[in-house]
């Protein structure tokens, strides 16, 4: 007998010595009918008492690998959560794509007329800035980012919106670079009441807000993808540990 068995055997003895005399003096209602209105109610209480005794005795534990199984389940649950979150952000991102395309198209439409207005005002430096704004808008980086990126090897799989992350990040970077130019054009257009240039600026501002929102969502998706990868690794480890535990207990049996 190990030390543990001896110690716990001693506890059992003490409980028996201390508790059982007390049990013997236990009183009761006098009859079952005093405590319960019907036999069925008393039977439910008896069954409930048995269920609680079974819980206390741990009879509901039918799983030697419960801890490993629980951890694997939690990892799986995190993986699912990360995927659900990617989908949530991805849906929002996808919803931004069409308005962004429309705004870019409108900006490109307005650009020649806006350039003409600025040229007529004979401000050479500003004409160049506007030119840069339009050029950047159709720059190869952004055009390329608009293409669907191959996600075959991505753990996120076919998460909607994933392919637009880079697009919005590029647009957002573009606005950070062009912020001063846009402000300059806006101020000049207001001062000289250049209607088309003002509309162009408004369109660009709208696109800027959309790009900021899209970039923010994209950054969140990037963070969640990192988490997803880590939880997927954790899940793989947890499943391996569970399999090892089950194999170990099967061998012991």
């Amino acid at each position, binding site marked *: 007998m190990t030390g543990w068995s001896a110690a716990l055997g001693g506890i059992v003895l003490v409980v028996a010595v201390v508790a059982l005399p007390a049990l013997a003096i236990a009183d009761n209602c006098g009859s079952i009918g005093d405590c319960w209105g019907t036999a069925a109610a008393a039977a439910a209480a008896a069954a409930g008492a048995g269920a609680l005794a079974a819980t206390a005795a741990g009879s*509901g534990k039918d799983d030697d690998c419960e801890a490993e199984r629980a951890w694997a389940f939690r990892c799986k649950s995190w993986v699912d959560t990360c995927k659900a979150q990617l989908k949530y952000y991805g849906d929002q991102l996808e919803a931004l794509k069409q308005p962004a395309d429309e705004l870019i198209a409108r900006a490109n439409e307005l650009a020649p007329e806006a350039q003409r207005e600025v040229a007529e005002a004979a401000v050479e430096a500003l004409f160049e800035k506007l030119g840069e704004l339009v050029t950047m808008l159709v720059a190869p980086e952004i055009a390329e980012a608009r293409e669907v990126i191959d996600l075959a090897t991505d753990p996120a799989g076919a998460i909607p919106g994933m392919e637009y992350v880079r697009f919005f990040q590029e647009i957002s970077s573009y606005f950070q670079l062009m912020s001063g130019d846009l402000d300059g054009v806006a101020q000049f257009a207001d001062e000289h009441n250049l209607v088309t240039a003002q509309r162009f600026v408004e369109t660009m501002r709208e696109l800027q807000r959309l790009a900021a929102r899209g970039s923010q969502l994209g950054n969140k998706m990037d963070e969640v993808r990192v988490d997803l990868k880590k939880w997927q690794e954790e899940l793989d480890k947890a499943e391996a540990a569970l399999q090892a535990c089950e194999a170990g207990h099967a061998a012991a049996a």
Partner: protein
Amino acid sequence: MVGSLIEFWSVRLPRWADRWSPRLGDALADGAWTVQWPALAAYAPAAALGVGFLSPVLWPGMRHVYTESLLFMLVVVIGAIGSGPVGVMLLSGYVIGRLLVGSRLSASSWDFDGLVRERGGELISFVLLAILAVVIPLVAQRMARQIPLDRLPPDPNIRLAAHAALYGIGCGLLTYLWCQGTVVLIRPVFTWVHSQPTVEAISPVQVTGRLLVIAAAGVAAARVLVENLHVRRGPVLATLVDLERRRRADGQRHSLWRRTPIAARIALATALVPLLLAGTYTGWIDAVVVAAATAALGAWRAGLIGRMPAAWSRLALKIPALVRVMGAFVIGQILANVMIGSWLARDSFRPVMLGALLTLATFYALFPQRRDLA
């Protein structure tokens, strides 16, 4: 301050508990999801400890035991299902408070016999409260996740709703069983000190216990939905992931129970079950019968005196635990009804004791060990 407290409740305390009881560690870490509301995650467990500690002396209507207050039990049910550490702390606070300041013994009556009777009865009430505040949420979580949802449409929202419903049903069912059993098992708090259970102590569980069941089911379902739809899809997810990862960082999860020799486990169950069922006894012999039966069932389940047929184990383990719990309760109730209604005289509690014992045996039969499959 708030950050340190969240770290304490969701990382440090569970890691400490993981070293000897991973289940307790899981219960303590269960409140991490409330980090969406930092003040709640930081202060709720501490507040629960305070409420539990003061309740034996200050809670309105609570004179002898917590079952006298439906409101207190509602707080326990809602708190424990909503956040594991709140349940653990309510229990801890109540036990400490009852032992330190809630004793009914006067200074002059502090004799050994009186102390044993009072503390013995209270020990049973503590075990019952532990089942309500800690065990039920954990067991219900386990039962809910054991039920495969593969046949449902792949829409995550449908599966989430199904999981919420299963967790709600699990918590509701177990709370219902708790209410039924506690009606009889709480009696030693009174009978062991030569008193009679009062209507005030039994009625909130027996008559209005359905409110506890409804609250348990509702809070459980709501928690699953809020946690998965709101918290886990929000910006706080990264914090949650970080808390979970740091809790697991050292990987020290060792169940003291599993490391305990099988003979000692059986001995512990043999001591605990007769104590818990004391409210159903008429005399000495009942305790002896329950102790002998519990020891025999434990030894049988452990494979020391025969083992469950592999075919039966295979069949039983295919059935979800939630269904098996319902089945064991229904079978136990039918058997107890037969005993109480016809076979035995109704002038003692013995048929109730036998009914409880048969239900216990049914649970053992329906929950074989996985190793019996071999």
